[in-house]
């Protein structure tokens, strides 16, 4: 499987970013809901630390992924897709990119405003983005929570659309992002103009 995307399929780099970030985000959402539902004890505090550390890792991966995405062509959407369907696809994908960057940033901001600096896996501490501010911390906490639900909603929509393409339209949209598959370039593929 090639590293880079081809006209027919995503390359291994894109697939790696996609599924790794998905797994980490799923983990973050799970830990996030668990840790905020527990009583505050040392173990909960450690969960917060883990959540923040992985969150920052996702921020970094998201930036790398976005760079890769901007520097590479992507396989085209099926020709039969109508303009409004294409718009939905592109909009939801870009929104997902925005969310995986804004979400960890909002967490980092919230931590700074709450006076709890972010330590990344205990190795180094990130600078505070804002000075401690109780009201700002509360607002950012609400934002971080809302964004979590936005991500859940959008990821569900995204997955549902992929399954729709696979099982209903029976095209290769899902297959070409799956790991360990190789989509051959077919005569019917047009040139790669993208998402």
């Amino acid at each position: 499987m090639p590293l880079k995307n081809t006209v027919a399929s995503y390359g291994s780099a894109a697939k790696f970013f996609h599924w790794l970030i998905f797994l980490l985000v799923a983990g973050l959402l799970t830990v996030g809901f668990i840790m905020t539902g527990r009583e505050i004890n040392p173990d909960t505090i450690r969960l917060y630390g883990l959540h923040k550390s992985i969150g920052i890792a996702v921020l970094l991966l998201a930036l790398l992924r976005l760079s890769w995405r901007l520097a590479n062509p992507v396989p085209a959407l099926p020709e039969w897709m109508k303009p409004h369907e294409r718009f939905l696809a592109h909009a939801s994908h870009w929104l997902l990119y925005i969310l995986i960057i804004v979400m960890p940033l909002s967490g980092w901001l919230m931590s700074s405003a709450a006076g709890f600096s972010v330590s990344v896996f205990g190795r180094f501490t990130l600078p505070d983005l804002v000075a401690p501010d109780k009201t700002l911390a509360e607002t950012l906490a609400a934002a971080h929570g809302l964004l979590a639900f936005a991500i859940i909603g959008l990821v569900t929509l995204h997955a549902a659309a992929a399954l729709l393409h696979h099982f209903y339209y029976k095209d290769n949209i899902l297959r070409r992002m799956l790991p360990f598959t190789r989509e051959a370039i077919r005569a019917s593929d047009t040139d790669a103009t993208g998402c």
Partner: protein
Amino acid sequence: MHRILTLLAASLLLAVSARAADAPAYETVSKKSEIKFFAILNNAPVQGRFREFSADIRFDPEQPDKSHIAAEVNTGSIVVSHADAEKNIQLPEWLSTEKFPKASFKSKKITRMPFSDNYYAEGDMTIKGKTAPATLNFHLQQKGDVAVAKGFVTLKRSAYGIGKGEWAKDDALKDEVRVEFRIFAKKMTK
């Protein structure tokens, strides 16, 4: 004979009391002073401060051994940046501010480090009803009647029972807490 003894005793007493009055008294200017503390939570620094405190200072740089510091902090005046944390830290498992509204330090011995304006004051720190030895390290800057003491003391929260139960021995919040102070004081004119 009796008269001489009385005279001797009186003069001795005078001499002793005169000695004790040698170290001038200072009063702290709260608005220009601050007491902050730093702890490590989840490997990241968290900090707070106390808004209300006072100090009874009798200090003479030339005679540190005759100097004395007695400081008192209103534990309930604690401020931390997180609203919930500020509430919780006053609970019985932590500072127990309702039962122990004051924390204090009383110096027993003040030493000046040679050829410098650095001092250390060994004494007793009492927090939450528990007393443990503590040493204040500070630098003193004097200009006329004004003295600014800037320093720190490192405390082990476990020595005072701050953080009970699972928190007592857990490294998620480290045992050592660093208290930094900047005391701005004016010589009392009496």
